[in-house]
């Protein structure tokens, strides 16, 4: 057990310092303002600059491959968060690139990877379908073989950043007669292929995601990733990364659960609330002097610290659930002005908790809903067995 400050070598300290300065200069107020307006979690200039500086490659590669050491990787994550870098598109890009490198033919990897590591090429996920929800194995998007090509028809939800990406990592159904896990095939579909249509959707937290449509999209077989009907194995590897179910042991240099970035957003907002309630207004009144304020803030902090201590799949649920449970109380104790979003005149805490409240909804949904993780905890941690559902109606 160890929660101490990490003692850095001179070189690592220099790395930290350089990175922090680099990001401080790169992620300007203007970048953050634009990101808030577009909701894209992506800034092409920032992304390219980090690619050009070699950081993307260092992050993508394992230590054995010449990538970041564990300590530098942790510094990297923390500094990216500290700067409030628009960043989620790199996560999906890196994850898909791993699957491509592992499962695709070498020439496809050669086509894609250099651009990915340089920042030029971005990849997005095409998993969820409009009627599918979190069960990604219920895939209706069809791919049919046509000589050495495939013809794809269907649609995907939450293809975030498709409009900034060059390829979508698509789950397709290549054999509707087979059971779910034997019917899937993965493709890396170039998004400039005729028949691909991208439509923007805004979510309640201000993010922009997409619905993408595929109408007679014809692509060569070389864009297939993994075996025909072997998509589940490819997906499994990628999902393990996304769900954070891969074993780790780096002496406390990794985040303890997925989505700790989100609870950090909340922690920053809570710290800000604490400063606000402790400050006297022009009449000399401090919110903190009201015990009802003090109580709710204290309970909120306690619950947040518990969520921040909760590991792995347990933490994934605790983080989203705690954001949902605590944000309303924090807004209440700030009063009506907590309803004003960031940048609005008189916003209680510059809209910090207002944003956490809106973020809490999606946080419990994307990357697999909380129910998916409660199922996993029930089945794998408590040994309660697979959930029973009503008989299928079709």
């Amino acid at each position: 057990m160890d929660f101490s400050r990490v003692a850095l070598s001179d070189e690592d300290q220099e790395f930290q310092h350089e990175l922090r300065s680099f990001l401080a200069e790169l992620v300007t107020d203007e970048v953050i303002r634009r990101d808030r307006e577009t909701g894209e979690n992506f800034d092409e200039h920032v992304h390219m600059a980090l690619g050009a500086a070699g950081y993307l490659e260092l992050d993508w590669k394992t230590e054995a491959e010449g990538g970041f050491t564990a300590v530098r990787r942790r510094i990297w994550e923390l500094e990216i968060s500290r700067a409030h870098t628009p960043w989620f598109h790199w996560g999906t890009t890196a994850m898909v690139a791993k699957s491509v490198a592992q499962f695709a033919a070498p020439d496809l990897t050669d086509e894609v990877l250099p651009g990915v590591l340089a920042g030029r090429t971005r990849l997005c996920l095409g998993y969820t379908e409009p009627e599918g929800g979190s069960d990604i194995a219920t895939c209706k998007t069809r791919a049919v073989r046509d000589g050495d090509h495939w013809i794809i028809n269907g649609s995907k939800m939450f293809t975030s950043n498709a409009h900034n990406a060059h390829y979508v990592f698509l789950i397709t159904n290549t054999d509707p007669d087979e059971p779910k896990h034997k019917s899937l095939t993965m493709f890396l579909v170039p998004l400039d292929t005729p028949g691909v249509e991208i439509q923007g959707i805004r979510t309640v937290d201000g993010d922009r995601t997409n619905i993408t449509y595929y109408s007679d999209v014809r692509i060569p077989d070389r864009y297939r990733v993994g075996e025909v009907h072997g998509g589940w194995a490819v997906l499994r590897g990628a999902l393990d990364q996304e769900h954070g179910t891969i074993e780790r042991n780096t002496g406390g240099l990794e985040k303890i659960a997925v989505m700790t970035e989100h609870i950090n957003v909340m922690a920053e907002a809570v710290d800000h609330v604490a400063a606000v309630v402790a400050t006297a207004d022009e009449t000399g009144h401090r919110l903190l002097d009201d015990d009802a304020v003090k109580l709710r803030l204290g309970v909120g902090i306690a619950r947040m610290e518990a969520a921040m201590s909760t590991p792995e799949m347990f933490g994934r649920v605790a983080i989203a659930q705690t954001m949902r449970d605590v944000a309303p109380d924090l807004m209440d104790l700030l009063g009506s002005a907590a309803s004003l979003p960031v940048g609005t005149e008189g916003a209680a805490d510059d809209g910090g908790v207002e944003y956490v409240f809106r973020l809490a909804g999606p946080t419990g949904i994307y990357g697999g809903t909380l129910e998916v993780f409660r199922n996993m905890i029930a089945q794998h941690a408590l040994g309660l067995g697979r959930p029973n559902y009503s008989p299928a109606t079709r």
Partner: protein
Amino acid sequence: MDRFELRRLDYSLSEDHTDLQSAYRQFFKSQCGIETVWAAEGSGFDKSLWERLCATGATTMALPEAAGGDGATLVDLTLVAEEVGRAIAPVPWIDHVCATRLLATLDALGDEAQSAALINGEQLACLDPRVDGRGGKRLIPAGSVADHVVFRDGDDVVRLSFATRPAKVDNIGRLPMAWVDPASADHRLVLGSGTEAVASYQRALDEWRVLMAAALTGLLEATMLAAAEFAKTRYTLGVPIATLQGISHPLANVAITVEGGRNLARRAAWFLDNEPDERPELAASAFVFMAQEAPRAATTAVHVQGGLGVSAEAASAAYLLRARGWALAGGDPAASAKQIAELVCAREAASTSRVASLLPSGAGRSI
């Protein structure tokens, strides 16, 4: 505070930790089954179990070597506390350990004979664990069995003893609880006065709250696992109820509470051990979280077992009562919650004025 500071987040246990943990899990498993728990409900205290526990060094370990103890860390003690909770053992180990550690800090363990008796548990000490403890007659969780009751009286830390111990009162946590009236004590000794003494008492309260939080995680884990076992073997309409999400998801939520509460208690203990001024709000946070969650989660475990769960003969019912009563022995958790707010507000108000010019302007949307 700097939420992006480079610190380790290493919750792993060392081999010494896991040895300690399994030694006490084994001890309580063999010495304190549910029948032992039930048998002690009248007095709230199993003297024989206490003596056997003390014989393992469970009280001695808690004191610093300079005071004649074995110098265990607070993290070590959370591991033992978890096992006390797992067994819902009728022994006031947490109270005694916190009180004797406080006595050691105040250099008030007494002469050699008395000091030895306190360290090895022959004499029992306890404290008033309430943060907002007001004066006058008070309910002390181990008041009916303690030889020494320590509490704060204004700027003084005092120790009371009684020729005849105060009478045990029935209570939902089945604790050896008693009304203690300082005015009727036979001996009253001021152990320390002023800022330092008060700070030492506050530290003892932090330790009590961390250990109580740890005990409650052990308690919840035990009753959760029993409920899970029940759910696997109870069928409805031909399927185990464990496979119904109406059962499995509430149990998963308890598992989440156990994982989070346990880690938070350990992290709070680590900071008290190593950097006590760095995160002073964590001890109270662990306590507030577990005090709120324990009764709810223990109710889930009961509920999963239906009518059998609420039967007075059910172990789950015994866990439910203690999940409620043990935390409440520390008074209204709101006092701790308010303390958390005060500590964090003081820190953030100070750091805001210090670094206002450095704050990023995009705090409202920051990922």
